[in-house]
């Protein structure tokens, strides 16, 4: 054995793993403490107000919106999305369905309702507030996205294919970062999202408040921003592609009790 490799071996066995272990433990502690001290409930409160607020040409609230469990039924609705909706003949996640209700119930135009779907720290968006409130009404309910209707099955398959599709200026797919166990970007652990064990705790805590920019973030945003970082063009809001990916991820996470909205780095 050369002196060099002996040195590396010593370093490898002693210093580095111990440090890495401590780091991981401290990061977990950080994440636990930010979750305990999260202001996420403020977004739920605001969302409840918006859910009940008459808006649009029809001047009605969203309280009659059918999120899959019947008009106005919120309890457990989020945990069963995305799912197939007969009236729209397509698979819809929460935001897509809300957009549907804004156009059909409230009579708003798609352009107006999607003008500002992702907000910022000074002015969160209507979708963000509503997502916080509606998701909170599924706490404790097991995730059970639709996976029986042929269109739900097709969405799952398309989502899976999208997950592994490498393209863009940096040759990336979702699996480039979320494809191997025990990897991280900077300090951020990367869940292997096509595996149920890893997908479950993640999907059970989205949408979420992000402390790094004090913003409440939805699943449509999460997918949008991943594609931005992957150096792709922008996915259209509420498109079939984003709904398919969301279906793939949520079906993969099936069975996990929902415990969001979460709080993330």
């Amino acid at each position, binding site marked *: 054995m050369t002196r060099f490799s002996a040195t590396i071996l010593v370093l490898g066995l002693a210093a580095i793993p111990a440090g890495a272990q401590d780091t991981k433990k401290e990061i977990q502690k950080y994440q636990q*403490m930010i979750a305990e001290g999260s202001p996420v409930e403020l977004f739920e409160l605001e969302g409840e107000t918006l859910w009940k607020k008459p808006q649009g040409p029809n001047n009605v609230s969203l309280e009659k919106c059918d999120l899959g469990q019947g008009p106005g039924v919120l309890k457990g609705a989020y945990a069963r999305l995305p799912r197939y909706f007969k009236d729209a003949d397509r698979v819809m996640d929460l935001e897509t369905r809300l957009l549907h209700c804004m156009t059909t119930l409230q009579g708003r135009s798609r352009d107006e309702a999607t003008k500002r779907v992702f907000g910022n720290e000074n002015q969160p968006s209507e979708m963000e507030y509503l997502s916080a409130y509606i998701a909170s009404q599924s706490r404790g309910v097991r995730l059970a996205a639709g996976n029986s209707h042929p269109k739900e099955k097709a969405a799952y398959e398309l989502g899976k294919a999208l997950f592994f599709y490498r393209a863009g200026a940096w040759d990336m797919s979702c699996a480039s970062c979320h494809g191997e166990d025990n990897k991280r970007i900077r300090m951020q652990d990367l869940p292997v999202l096509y595996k149920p064990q890893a997908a479950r705790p993640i999907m059970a805590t989205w949408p979420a408040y992000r402390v790094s920019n004090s913003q409440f973030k939805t699943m449509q945003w999460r997918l949008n921003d991943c594609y931005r*970082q992957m150096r792709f063009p922008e996915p259209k809001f509420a498109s079939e592609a984003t709904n398919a990916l969301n279906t793939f991820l949520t079906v993969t996470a099936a069975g996990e009790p929902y415990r969001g909205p979460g709080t993330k780095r």
Partner: protein
Amino acid sequence: MTRRSLLAFLGLLLARPLSVLAAWNEQAFGAKTAADALKGIGVSAPAPSKDIVIDAPQIAENGAVVPIEISSNVPGTTAIAVVIEKNPFPLAARFEFKEGALPFVKLNVKMGETSDVRVVAFAGGQQLTATREIKVTIGGCGG
């Protein structure tokens, strides 16, 4: 005016908007060094004490929110100050605990960089202190 209504009237006076009553130590909060901040709140040579407990992660993934839990086991603690030594304005907060409150607080603070966080507890004439280093790192893709 009856005695009762007079008391009620005084009560109303006391319930004036908080903004009129509230004091804010501009000098201490405007201080740019930890030493000046401590001076601003009347602290000089505080004694290190194990009875001040600072619970915080050693590593924060993001400086925008660093959760800190502080409690003092020093009998008679009446106030606690939090100083983030390397922040542009180190004094972060000062809590006064009156009869009925326990000397305990949990809050989220911003940290510009890795720094010692100093807590000073005031108990009777005593000033006691403890510090904890919190490392601020970069999370996410940075794009």
